[in-house]
């Protein structure tokens, strides 16, 4: 099985460079996993704390493979008709109305009901053909000629039933539609599933995927990420800010600042023309990376110490 026009990447360097060009600085194990998945044609189940770039990884992969990203956001109550396909009821109705004369002509001349129904049976497949099928993200991903990246976001938020239904797609890359039959993938999409661990996923799903755990990046990597995403930042400020954030992550707070929030903060600091971290500017911009009142209070209590640490680290 091949991934669309991709028959697996040539080397891990290709993946690393590609992701980097797409603005995603990946740790080694992430590139390794993407590389492996491209060769095994297996979905990747990405887990990790919120905001470490799980969704971003899928986006970056799509942009560097130059294929469309098709995204399915999961939520409680998501079902087949929203995820896979739906019949275009309106179109079916409209067509039957427009074609009323034609239908009348077909049935004409038949004496009783059973005979006319018999006649109609010869045509009923027309209304349940692909023309009347409205593809939803999953089916759309299977139908892409050039391949696609399919992102099933926050799969842990969906119901058990939906998870079971995903299995067919993930292992065989095909879907069964009762009226039509089995539709196989034109080209196999590159699948990412993300999960925040709000509930344990079923074993069957785990078995079909490669399991990638992304944790917060180490300081060096995070600096590189900030450098790529916020080009205007000075090296000194970058060092201070990343050291600060990493120290904050060790505090006893409810919601840890994510990588995306580090980037937000960096952008804010650049906009404010900050050269250095100091107590005042940190206090004013605290709300860019801490979103809870209690967390902010904890951070404010330790502000002096944190700032000093960050400045010392950056030297």
């Amino acid at each position, binding site marked *: 099985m091949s991934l669309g026009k991709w028959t697996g990447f040539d080397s*891990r360097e290709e993946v690393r460079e590609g992701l980097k060009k797409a603005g995603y600085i990946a740790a*080694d*194990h992430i590139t*390794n*996993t993407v590389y*492996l998945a491209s*060769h*095994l044609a*297996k979905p*990747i*189940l990405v*887990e990790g704390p919120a905001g470490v770039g799980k969704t971003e990884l899928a986006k970056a992969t799509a942009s560097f493979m130059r294929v469309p990203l098709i995204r399915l956001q999961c939520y409680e109550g998501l079902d087949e008709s929203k995820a896979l396909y739906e019949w275009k009821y309106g179109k079916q109705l409209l067509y039957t109305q427009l074609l009323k004369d034609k239908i009348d002509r077909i049935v004409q001349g038949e004496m009783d009901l059973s005979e006319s129904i018999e006649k109609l049976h010869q045509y009923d497949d027309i209304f349940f053909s692909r023309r009347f099928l409205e593809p939803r993200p999953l089916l759309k991903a299977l139908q892409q000629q050039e391949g696609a990246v399919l992102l099933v976001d926050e799969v842990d938020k969906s119901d058990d039933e939906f998870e079971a239904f995903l299995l067919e797609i993930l292992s065989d890359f095909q879907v069964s539609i009762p009226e039509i039959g089995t539709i196989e993938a034109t080209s196999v999409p590159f699948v990412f599933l993300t999960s925040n661990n709000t509930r*344990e996923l079923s*074993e069957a799903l*785990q*078995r*079909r*995927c*490669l*399991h*990638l*755990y992304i944790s917060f990046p180490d300081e060096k990597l995070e600096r590189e990420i900030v450098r790529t995403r916020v080009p205007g930042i000075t090296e000194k400020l970058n060092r201070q800010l990343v050291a600060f954030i990493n120290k904050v992550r060790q505090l006893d707070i409810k919601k840890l600042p994510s990588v995306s929030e580090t980037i937000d903060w960096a952008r804010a600091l650049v906009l404010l023309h900050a050269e250095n971290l100091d107590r005042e500017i940190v206090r004013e911009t605290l709300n860019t990376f801490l979103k809870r009142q209690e967390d902010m209070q904890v951070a404010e209590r330790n502000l002096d110490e944190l700032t000093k640490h960050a400045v010392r680290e950056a030297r």
Partner: protein
Amino acid sequence: MDRTLENFISVLRRSGVRVSVSETMDAVRAVALSGYEDRQLMKDFLSVTLAKTNPEKVIFESCFDNFFNVEGLGSRDALSQEQIAAPAIHLSSPLTQMLLSGSGGGLSLAFREAALGAGIKDIQYPHQRGMYMQKLLQIMGLNGLNEDIRNQAAQGNPESAALAKSLESMRDNLMSLARDLIDRQLDLYASKRYEEMLERQLQYTNLSSLEERDLILIQAIVKKMVKRLKDRYSRRPKEARRGQLDLKKTMRRNIVYGGVPFDPKWKTKKIDRPEVVVLCDVSRSVSNVVRFLLLILYSLNEVISKIRSFAFCTNLVEVSSYFEKYAVHEAVSKILAGEGLSIVLRKTDYGRSFTDFKEQYSECLSRRTTIIILGDARSNFGEPNTEILRFISERCKRLIWLNPEAPVRWGTGDSEMKKYLPYCTLARECNALQHLELVVGSLLRR
């Protein structure tokens, strides 16, 4: 599939990682892609194909490091440090020659072959270490080495004496390496099996014969038990979804539609979340088991939300807050010592304790309460006050008595068990963990 990967996967399985056949196939393909040279790459590949949850990842890490360290034993050159310039007079044993030539690779190969020959994978218990070590060293040719050492020492000239000495130290080195190898194998192959056996044993052992050092393990077992029960009884909503049509509710509900049953209501099966009151005897006659009774009481606190605990000896006091405030060991030892409690730890008096309960705490009795009494009913010939137990029994849903003594001993000597028996909904012997599981299970069922 190659042997190394096969062995590694069986090690993972034994350590509790679930690896399915399809995952094994993925791993094989992944390793074919990565090769064995790049350790880190291979580790990444195997990690994403084999370990699918975070706990599994942790197990995987340690297994991987252990396993591939054993394999790569040759890289440690502890033995080649002391190289001897020229092997002197005839040395018969191949092992001696190998040691003297300082070939780490050859030695590692010999180790591996010997390990296979000794069937080291079948090691199960720590006490088998000695046996396997003997076997391993035999196969490697320790006898020959010993003979060489003896021969050299017997020759009497200083040169050969020095050689014998360095050979001896090499032998010690060799032995410590072998010990390392066996320890790691034991870690890999046996620890899980050994733990399982120990657990099984503990399940059936009488609580009174358990020792202090088992306490930690017991706690783990109790936790496991509690988790299992929790899993079983927390599937409440699903259970309630099925059922028969609830006619009364449906009619009431559909009055708004003029009696047309648009919105049917179903009878629901509800699993009771009991309110539990536990009275635990902490006197000396049950001192052997009381530690465990309290431990179990503590764990019950975690499964059952509404629980009040009382300890009694000569009189009765409430100890619920201790279980909330302190960690398990602290709580248990505090209660046993009566620290901060107005409990009198002299002769056990069941009659007085029941009276205390009735007078001070009868407000916690309702038709939803289950009362559990943990104790041997040995009241030192005091007044048993059975009518008070009857009073309690009549005002609660169930009264369960768990007695650490076997039923044959009930009613003998100062045991008042026979007199209390008529007022108990259920009276059981309870002195092993497996008894407890039954009781707790029946507690949560309707």
